[in-house]
């Protein structure tokens, strides 16, 4: 039934706090045109468009894909708009991939974006509700208690988060598109940065970015046109669970565990730590690296921090994680998940430039959203599945 799906074009914008030089249309076109160019294709070659972004309140445009129809060359074509909170960039890519896998289209353009500077992320994420009292301060306020719970439960050394942040910000120096490029970054700089939502420090927090990411996905028939070899989609998986219920495990959510399990099964992976060469995972606050290492089955529960500590997740480690600098270095929320998926594909296409992991053949892209409840993941490889 399922056709093979290949990533044949990848594009992203330069991510920054304020892309004052472009409109929303210009931002998404910048990424889309780079993806088309990478695939050696033009607008007319695209059969359908799949758009993803997080809450519409960021830009104050309701269902902005309608306004973007022209900018995405979508007139006369099918256009879908996905929204699954923070995981949306990943789920958008998965919807696009399933259009190819189902044999419905030959080439699909998928784009995810956020232009957060049009408003204020803290405001848009926590619009107050009448009759309720707002005591959770944005995403940091929500996730910080979970991090404290992880620290307490695992007994991880207190500087684990600092080490993650330092690694990702150093990696970002090798990524020309990254938002935060801080050559002066050091352990002390991260450690001495102010606590925002104690235990999360300023330098352990993702920025608020404007940015977009786009990919051209193709059927096997139409795959061999671009200059770079395709990345083949080996498996995709999505899982969701409710926001809050009695007995819920918030630190190591079951939805994430089961999503990873299904993903590895579909991809024929039995030993993820050994078989996956590089991973791009959604780490908006430094401590989520060890938390997700456990959730994804790379480390036993309570021991994810050791991977950071032992340098396993470093660019030259056994399982390099977030070689692009990750969400900690660029966070246009709606696009962040797709950036993870795209960076994974760039690695197996040998396209990652200075942050390329030598000889990467199998890569994981991961995104999560909501209250650690929405998960989307894919495995891409240089070889056909």
């Amino acid at each position, binding site marked *: *039934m*399922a056709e093979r799906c290949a990533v044949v074009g990848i594009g992203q914008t330069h991510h920054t706090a304020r892309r004052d030089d472009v*409109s929303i249309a210009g931002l998404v076109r910048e990424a889309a045109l780079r993806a088309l160019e990478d695939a050696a294709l033009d607008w007319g070659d695209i059969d359908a468009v799949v758009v993803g972004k997080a*809450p*519409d*309140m960021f*830009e*104050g*445009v*309701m*269902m*902005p*894909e*309608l*306004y*973007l*129809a*022209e900018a995405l060359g*979508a*007139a*006369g*074509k*099918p*256009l*879908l*708009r*996905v*929204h*699954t*909170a923070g995981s949306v960039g990943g*789920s958008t890519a*998965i*919807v696009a991939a*399933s*259009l190819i*896998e*189902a*044999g*419905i289209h030959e080439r699909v353009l998928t784009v995810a974006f956020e232009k957060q500077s049009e408003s204020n992320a803290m405001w*848009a*994420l926590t*619009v107050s*509700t009448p009759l309720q009292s707002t005591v959770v301060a944005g995403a940091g306020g929500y996730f910080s208690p979970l991090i404290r719970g992880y620290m307490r439960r695992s007994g991880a050394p207190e500087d684990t988060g600092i080490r993650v942040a330092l690694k990702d910000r150093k990696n970002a120096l090798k990524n020309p598109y990254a938002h935060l490029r801080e050559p002066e970054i050091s352990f002390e700089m991260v450690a001495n940065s102010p606590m925002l939502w104690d235990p999360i420090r300023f330098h352990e927090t993702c920025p608020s970015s404007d940015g977009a990411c786009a990919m051209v996905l193709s059927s096997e028939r139409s795959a061999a046109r671009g200059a770079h070899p395709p990345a083949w989609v080996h498996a995709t*998986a*999505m*899982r*969701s*669970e*409710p*926001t809050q*219920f009695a007995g819920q495990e918030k630190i190591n*959510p*079951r*939805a994430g565990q*089961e*999503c990873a399990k299904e993903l590895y099964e579909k991809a024929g992976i039995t030993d993820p730590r050994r078989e996956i060469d590089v991973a791009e995972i959604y780490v908006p606050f430094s401590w989520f690296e060890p938390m997700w290492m456990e959730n994804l089955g790379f480390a036993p529960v309570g021991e994810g921090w050791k991977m950071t500590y032992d340098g396993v997740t470093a660019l030259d480690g056994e399982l390099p994680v977030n070689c692009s600098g990750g969400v900690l270095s660029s966070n246009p929320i709606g696009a962040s998940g797709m950036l993870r998926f795209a960076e994974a594909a760039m690695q197996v296409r040998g396209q990652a430039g200075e942050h390329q992991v030598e000889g990467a053949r199998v890569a994981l892209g991961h995104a999560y959203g*909501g*209250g650690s*409840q*929405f998960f989307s993941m894919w495995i891409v490889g240089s070889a056909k599945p």
Partner: protein
Amino acid sequence: MREVAVVSFAQSRHVRREARNEVEILMPVVHEAVERSGIARPFDFTCSGSTDFLQGQPFAFVMALDAAGAWPPIAESHVEMDGAWALYEAWVKIQAGQADTALVYAFGKSSPGDLPEVLSRQLDPYVVAPLWPDAVSLAALQARAWLEKTGRSERDLAEVAARSRRSAKANPHATLAGDYEVAKLLAEPHLAAPLRRHDCPPICDGAAALVLAAGDVARRACKRPAWIRGIDHRIEPHALGARDLADSPSTRLAGVRAGVGKGGVDVAELHAPFAHQEWILREALGLGAGVDVNPSGGALSANPMMAAGLIRIGEAARRISDGAARRAVAHATSGPCLQQNLVCVLEGA
């Protein structure tokens, strides 16, 4: 193409203003659709449609998950679109062989805000939205373009409204139903000329859910599954001044791709929130005078935003399953003045 069918459908009673919140509206509807399908949870895939702007609160779909039954964790996705496109995404998953069953739901609570004003936030944010044109006024621009192009009259609009609300008398879920005299309707003042109030949809709150199943699973679940023989959707440019508003080329193309013309059509459920849009859609889909259009009363009788398109598919499927129709066409729309359209062809055998 895999054989996929709608095997059950449920909807709330669509009322002007719901006291219940989205989860409270949605949960009984989801339960009903699931029970009617006879398919045991978990579904292989779940997909929903909604938009945050109706209530002015981000992440409404996140809480709605409470009603869906998401424990143990489920494979799930959400479109910020009408639920008809959620159905499309679920259909694609089944086509890709990644699912055999899917739960699809949609909900919209429009009563908290001024809906025609809220919908102005859909428009180009630089050159149109700052003028705050309301959705009714824009539909009226389209109505006039159609009237003047075709030489039809406002009576043709009132007749659609009267017929829709007469049909809705048999629909216990409708917001507006009853017998209206065309002459009396035409004596009313314009709301946004050339549209009168009766040419416009009621603003209401509601939800809908349905279950899709493939092949033998569908045959086991339902005596007479409503098989999806074709489904396609297309979008047009957003700029109203770059389109021919009197026509719907995206519906025409989607209709051709979905295979509307491959056989006779008994019933068509068209998502035409404004009376003139029914005429435009009929023409674009090539539906003749013999087609029973909107036996449910259509969106002119109940238009819960984000669910009304999915409801068209559910209503068409229901008529296949109960034997009233052999072949039906369902249509959903999104965006100002029919910018985006989906067409689905359903058959009983």
